[in-house]
């Protein structure tokens, strides 16, 4: 019986528990003067029994599935011959993988190496035993839950309160997923990054100006590997993001102003959704557009005026990224500008200011914190944007401020380092996590500052 079947069994048992619990409650009530005497409706007694049946068994199953592989591994390790268990960590994990595959293939008998064969047989034996123990244990837990909760049904049992409390716990659990996600992100990038910084010093990574991870392909090349100076990546990311913001901020801001202050309501009704389409287009589409249309166009344009433009120029990438974040800047600015109280507008108009004077001298200064917050969020988005740069920016780490040349970015390198076949433990892959950590920290700081500014700004006018 595998895990899926077990799950079905547990589910069936809890459904059965519902029926039994309901009946039992009605029966108990009958002895005490009818259903009116019950604390809760009969269905709540059903739910209660159902929960007692399913929930503990389910929790146990989840824990079993999480911890089973580790425990079996260490048990297997203890039984392995000395020459095998003495292997280095990397090799050992390879051997273990091998054994796992062998055990799953069902062709153990065909294996020629006797050591491997016996080890695989041990593994299969362990796994079978574990499964048997698991099934019996979980089944009895479920059954015990049913019987115990059935026996506890009295007229005054507060079944509804119990059920509602469990529901509330489940709701809390769901809302904790957000925190778990953040913790998961931090832990996963942090641990791998720490391992990376053991082989490459943090200072070399943060301040090195040369990036060439390509030489360290195999695990046995640790130490003689490439150089991991991330400055060119940071510079490239900044260059492309800056170009994007130069395009997006004025365009987004001005269109927000026009839409909220000048446009007639009918024009706004059709222009706003149209602009927001730009935000709904997947980034991979922008990447395609940048790589196949904008980049060649800019290259040709450069050639006609005698400029040498790289075919993967930062300019082309930045422009397309800018287009992508226009609606983002626009809708954020729209929000903050409309949050400026009407009294502020009245004051300026009452003094005889024209509309543009009101906007430039009163509305924008008043909305400035909100606008700055919006720009920071847009910057965070530009820095973290991946597909456009993966498809349209370069791979070579050039340290340059010339937008006509090709540069690479943090996200491009993460993708390059992690796609394709690779050993998980090589510094090359670990470097991707170190870059991910930098990316996460940078965007986190930007987001927190931006969200804080925007929140403070809103409170000011509430």
């Amino acid at each position, binding site marked *: 019986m595998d895990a899926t079947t077990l799950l079905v069994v547990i589910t069936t048992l809890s459904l059965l528990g519902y029926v039994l619990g309901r009946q039992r409650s009605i029966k108990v009530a009958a002895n005490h003067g009818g259903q009116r005497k019950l604390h809760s409706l009969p269905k709540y007694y059903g739910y209660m029994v159902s929960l007692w049946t399913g929930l503990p068994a389910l929790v146990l199953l989840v824990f079993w599935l999480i911890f089973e592989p580790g425990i079996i591994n260490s048990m297997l390790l203890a039984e392995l011959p000395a020459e095998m268990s003495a292997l280095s960590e990397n090799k050992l994990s390879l051997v273990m993988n091998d054994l796992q595959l062998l055990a799953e293939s069902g062709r153990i008998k065909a294996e020629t190496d006797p050591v491997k064969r016996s080890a695989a047989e041990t593994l299969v034996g362990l796994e079978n035993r574990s499964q048997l123990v698991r099934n019996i244990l979980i089944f009895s837990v479920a059954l015990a839950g049913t019987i115990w909760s059935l026996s506890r049904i009295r007229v005054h049992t507060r079944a509804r309160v119990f059920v509602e409390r469990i529901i509330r716990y489940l709701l809390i659990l769901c809302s904790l997923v957000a925190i778990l996600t953040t913790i998961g992100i931090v832990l996963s990038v942090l641990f791998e990054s720490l391992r990376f910084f053991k082989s490459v010093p943090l200072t070399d990574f943060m301040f090195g100006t040369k990036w060439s991870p390509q030489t360290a392909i195999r695990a046995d090349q640790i130490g003689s590997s490439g150089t991991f100076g991330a400055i060119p990546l940071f510079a490239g990311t900044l260059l492309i993001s800056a170009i994007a913001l130069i395009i997006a901020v004025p365009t987004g801001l001005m269109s927000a102003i026009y839409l909220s202050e000048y446009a*007639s309501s009918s024009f706004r009704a059709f222009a706003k959704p149209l602009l927001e389409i730009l935000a709904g287009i997947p980034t991979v589409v922008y990447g395609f557009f940048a790589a196949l249309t904008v980049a060649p166009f800019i290259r040709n344009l450069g050639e006609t005026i005698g400029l040498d433009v790289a075919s993967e120029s930062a300019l082309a990438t930045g422009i397309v990224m800018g287009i992508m974040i226009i609606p983002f800047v626009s809708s954020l600015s729209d929000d903050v500008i409309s949050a400026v*109280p009407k009294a*502020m507008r*009245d*004051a300026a108009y*009452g*003094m*005889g200011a024209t509309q543009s*004077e009101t906007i430039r001298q*009163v509305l924008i200064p008043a909305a400035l914190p909100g606008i700055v917050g919006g720009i920071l969020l847009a910057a965070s988005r530009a820095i973290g944007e991946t597909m456009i740069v993966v498809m349209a920016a370069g791979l070579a780490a050039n340290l340059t401020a010339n937008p006509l040349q090709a540069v690479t970015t943090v996200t491009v390198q993460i993708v390059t380092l992690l796609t394709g076949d690779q050993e998980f433990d090589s510094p090359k892959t670990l470097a991707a996590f170190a870059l991910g950590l930098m990316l996460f920290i940078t965007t986190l700081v930007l987001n927190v500052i931006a969200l804080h500014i925007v929140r403070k700004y809103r409170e000011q006018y509430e």
Partner: protein
Amino acid sequence: MKSESEHQQQTQADTSHQSENKAADIQQEVGATIGQPFVKQPKMQARHVDVFYGEKQAIYDVSLDLGKNEVVALIGPSGCGKSTFLRCMNRMNDTIPICRVSGMITLDDEDIYAEDMDPVLLRARVGMVFQKPNPFPKSIYDNVAYGARLHGLAFNKAELDEIVITSLQKAGLFDEVRDRLHEPGTGLSGGQQQRLCIARTIAVSPEVILMDEPASALDPIATAIIEELIDELRQNYTIAIVTHSMQQAARVSQRTAYFHLGKLVEIGATNQIFTNPLHELTENYITGRFG
């Protein structure tokens, strides 16, 4: 103060119910205004003014004059159109797209709704002070200097300083803020903020000042200071003030106009209105039967 205005609203809600039944037959009576809407030396004249918000009519055929160097108080229950009428006098209603004004309003015999009348110039000549103090999020100095800079009234720093200081003095605020001219205007108390807004308005040297319940958000002491200020300002300006408080109208104005359901019911010398109103509605209102 707050509780008082709440109380006012409460009683108004109670009495509006009673007066609703009357409204139908009253409308017949108030076709024309009772009293003296016109003066010998008018600064602004309104003739047969109707105002519409979309389909809904807010002001019905209002005619009155604002005389030179006088304070005219506009009173009436809330929603009676007095603020709407005030905002027509410097075309602030232009900023509301669905608002339409017909009839004629003149400033020194110029039609302010004429094609060639510039609303920017008009608003510089007819200034406005709002219900809630609304200083810009700038320094006190910049708040007062805003209009002068906007309209290019000062040619150098000294002239600008001069304008700012005299305006603050006229608004009776200079002594209080002398040392912190460059601190944000939003840091002042409510009453000071409102005087700052008055200083900002008179810095452009308007000919008329429109005040929309300027003291309704202030405590009694700040209100008293503002009222004194209004009385002083009358020497140089024509002032129209919308107010909820009949005591205030009695204290600061020379003439009082009573609005009811978008119509100008009665207008006359403040003394006469409060002691011997001609119209039943006016009498009901000032004796506190509704509003």
